[in-house]
């Protein structure tokens, strides 16, 4: 059985490599992925307007790129201590095409913070009220713990004990609920502690019948009033210092951020977000997935080879020669799948490795900010692209064996895999796009997602921006299921039908 399979794999490999058209198509697949990936399809302004125009987002304690824009009213706190305040009101304004209008974005934040320093990207822990996500305890940009879903007025308390910071909230200042305790390794013995207000950009999809055409976004500002401020511990300074950290560039509609104190009441206005950096509408630039934009085109060539690898034999009657030489038909199909899958995998791995190695540089040289990704993610993208092509080739082979017609098989698989992807990243409304990328084999493109989707960052997490509705492995799993199903049906039919 194993010897038979080995011989058949060798025979099928000989078949594949001895048809010049198929070898050419496989090269075309690689060239398509590499060519589209290295073509400067987009441009940006990062670093193209001389020194100072480089896009250099701060790096968070975890090594990831972050947004660190907020207005901070703080004093140094030496060692352990706590700070308590009541958030009396939280309001906001949004800048749109027609000027400012009132409005509070869902992730507007107002509350207490202990931060290593005023340097963007420094470690912190904070407890806050949000626009519409209730009370949260957040730390070091990526940490996010949900508290009660209340709105102002609300009491908040932040307590430091060594490198542990505990957030709590209360409706009346008497009965407290602990939201969570986090370890903030980067917090120095003397930290900046106080009030903060931040407001990420406003983003919304203007949902026309077709397309993401209308992604609406613009700066926003939040304003909070705080009172009943109380402190414990060693507070070394006598005065509060207002500092604007990061946030939107100069000249924006909310450039004038500050705080006012009137007796016991602080009014603080802030703009920007203190959160992980995302790509797309609410963030900056693109992810490294952008370099793999040619995959869909390479996939078309791969699908053609996968389908013709079996339908070509039906067309010429060669399938009878094949089955006469190997009467165990399941073995024939398995060997064909192995060969066409392995070859497509190699094409995908080589092409995506080349594109990732050089494509990021091309984008950056055209002023596009490319969010870096770790080696692990790069590896997953390379192997994943190989798997995406391999599985698609096997799916095409199976559909070819089922339909026994070249044109029908090629068209069918392109409609199943490539078309949903193309529609999802172009004209489909977000909801339809996400639905399509959950159930069609095109879900496997999720394996190429490199940017992280954060619950605590509002963004247009659309396929067009490189965000897929399923996690990478699950998306690939959808294609695996389709391929396995088609292969099973093909095997049954191949055994049952007269050749």
């Amino acid at each position: 059985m194993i010897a038979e399979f080995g011989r058949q794999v060798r025979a099928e490999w000989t078949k594949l490599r001895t048809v010049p058209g198929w070898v050419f198509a496989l090269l075309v697949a690689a060239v398509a992925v590499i060519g589209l990936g290295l073509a400067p399809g987009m441009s940006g302004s990062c670093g193209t307007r001389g020194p100072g125009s480089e896009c250099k987002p701060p790096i968070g304690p975890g090594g990831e790129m972050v947004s660190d824009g907020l207005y901070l009213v703080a004093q140094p706190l030496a060692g352990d201590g706590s700070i308590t305040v009541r958030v009396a009101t939280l309001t906001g304004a949004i800048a749109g095409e027609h000027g400012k209008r009132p409005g509070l974005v869902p992730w507007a934040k107002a509350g207490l913070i202990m931060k290593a320093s005023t340097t963007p990207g420094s470690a912190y822990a904070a407890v806050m009220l949000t626009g519409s996500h209730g009370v949260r305890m957040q730390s070091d940009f990526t940490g996010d713990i949900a508290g009660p879903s209340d709105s102002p007025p609300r009491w908040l308390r932040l307590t430091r004990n060594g490198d542990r910071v505990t957030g709590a909230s209360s409706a009346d200042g008497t009965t407290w609920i602990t939201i969570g305790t986090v370890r903030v390794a980067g917090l120095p013995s003397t930290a900046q502690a106080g009030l903060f207000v931040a407001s990420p950009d406003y983003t919304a999809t203007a949902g026309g019948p077709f397309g993401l055409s209308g992604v609406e976004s613009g700066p926003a500002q939040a304003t909070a009033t705080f009172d009943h401020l109380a402190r414990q511990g060693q507070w070394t300074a006598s005065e509060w210092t207002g500092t604007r950290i990061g946030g939107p560039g100069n000249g924006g509609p909310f450039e004038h951020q500050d705080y006012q104190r009137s007796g016991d009441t602080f009014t603080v206005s802030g703009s920007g977000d203190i959160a992980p950096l995302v790509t797309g509408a609410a963030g900056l630039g693109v992810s490294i997935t952008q370099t793999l934009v040619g995959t869909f085109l390479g996939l078309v060539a791969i699908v053609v080879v996968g389908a013709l690898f079996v339908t070509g034999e039906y067309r010429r009657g060669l399938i009878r020669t094949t089955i006469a030489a190997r009467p165990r038909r399941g073995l024939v199909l398995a060997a064909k799948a192995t060969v066409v899958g392995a070859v497509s995998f190699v094409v995908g791995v080589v092409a995506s490795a080349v594109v990732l190695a050089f494509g990021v540089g091309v984008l950056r040289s055209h002023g596009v900010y490319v969010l870096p990704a770790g080696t692990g993610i790069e590896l997953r993208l390379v192997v994943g692209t190989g798997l995406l092509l391999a599985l698609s080739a096997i799916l095409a082979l199976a559909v070819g064996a089922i339909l026994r017609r070249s044109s029908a098989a090629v068209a069918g698989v392109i409609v199943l895999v490539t078309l949903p992807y193309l529609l999802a990243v172009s004209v489909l409304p977000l909801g339809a796009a996400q639905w399509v990328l959950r159930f069609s084999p095109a879900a496997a493109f999720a394996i190429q997602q490199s940017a992280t989707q954060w619950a605590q960052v509002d963004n247009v997490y659309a396929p067009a921006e490189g965000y897929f509705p399923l996690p990478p492995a699950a998306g690939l799993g959808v294609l695996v299921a389709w391929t396995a199903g088609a292969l099973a049906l093909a095997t049954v039919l191949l055994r049952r039908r007269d050749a």
Partner: protein
Amino acid sequence: MSEATIEVTGLRKRYGAAVALDGMTFTVRPGQVTGFVGPNGAGKSTTMRVILGLDAADEGRALVGGRPYRALRRPLTRLGSLLDAGALQPSRTARNHLLWLAHSQGIPVRRVDETLEQVGLTGVARRRAGGYSLGMRQRLGIAAALLGEPPALMLDEPFNGMDPEGIVWMRGFLRSLAAEGRAVLVSSHLMGEMQDTADHVVVVGRGRVIADAGVAQLLAGAAGDRITLRTDAIAVADVLQAEGGVATRTGPDTWSVTGLPPQRVIAALGAHGVPFSEVAAHRPSLEEAYLELTHNAVDYRAPGGAR
């Protein structure tokens, strides 16, 4: 186990309402060329596909060397076959076509070049098979069948598309393969192609065997006692009838005589003074023997066709 290398027993197969095989039974023995003859649609190709396990029969069985073909691990070393010489990927070279077949059976690559040499394709082995003439494709198909040095060969219409030179070559080639002790089954819809090729003939019609006999036996049976007589004398009919024979006019001056040996025909014509230019004992061709045999099958077919 019998000596037969291919054994077909009671094969039945229907395609919807059409009966393709209706109890097909015959055996193919080693050391001789067996002709598999019948009109188009008689079930020859279907039988061959069933033998190869490509099509499933509704009933009956086909054995190759005593085993079902589907159970063979390296089938090309047991039975070499050529069903359709056109079954080639046109952009693949002839040599690569044989190469993948060799790899599938674990046959050494040297066999590829040997068989190409054997069928006379060495000079064009690295050309695209798509550019081959039908005759060259038949040769390539023979090479593929020979690749595994099988004890049995099965060729469907190998003479199709061959030029006269090719047909002569094919005849000699098939005879030499049989002389090596192989069982060779060759189908054809033209009985004439079997003359001087086959030792044994299986004649089929409408999915069943009509005759299964040695060629010599078949010719003897068909020869009967027919005599061809050349004369323009009308009296021939009466003269020979009086002697107990039957003369049927077959042309302006030709007659066919049955029921009398040539000597008695000559004696009778001489006694009655009937002039004649030629008396010849008829030497039947295989074609005629075949037509005689299938005559009944055709008769039987007429009412059947109206079903």
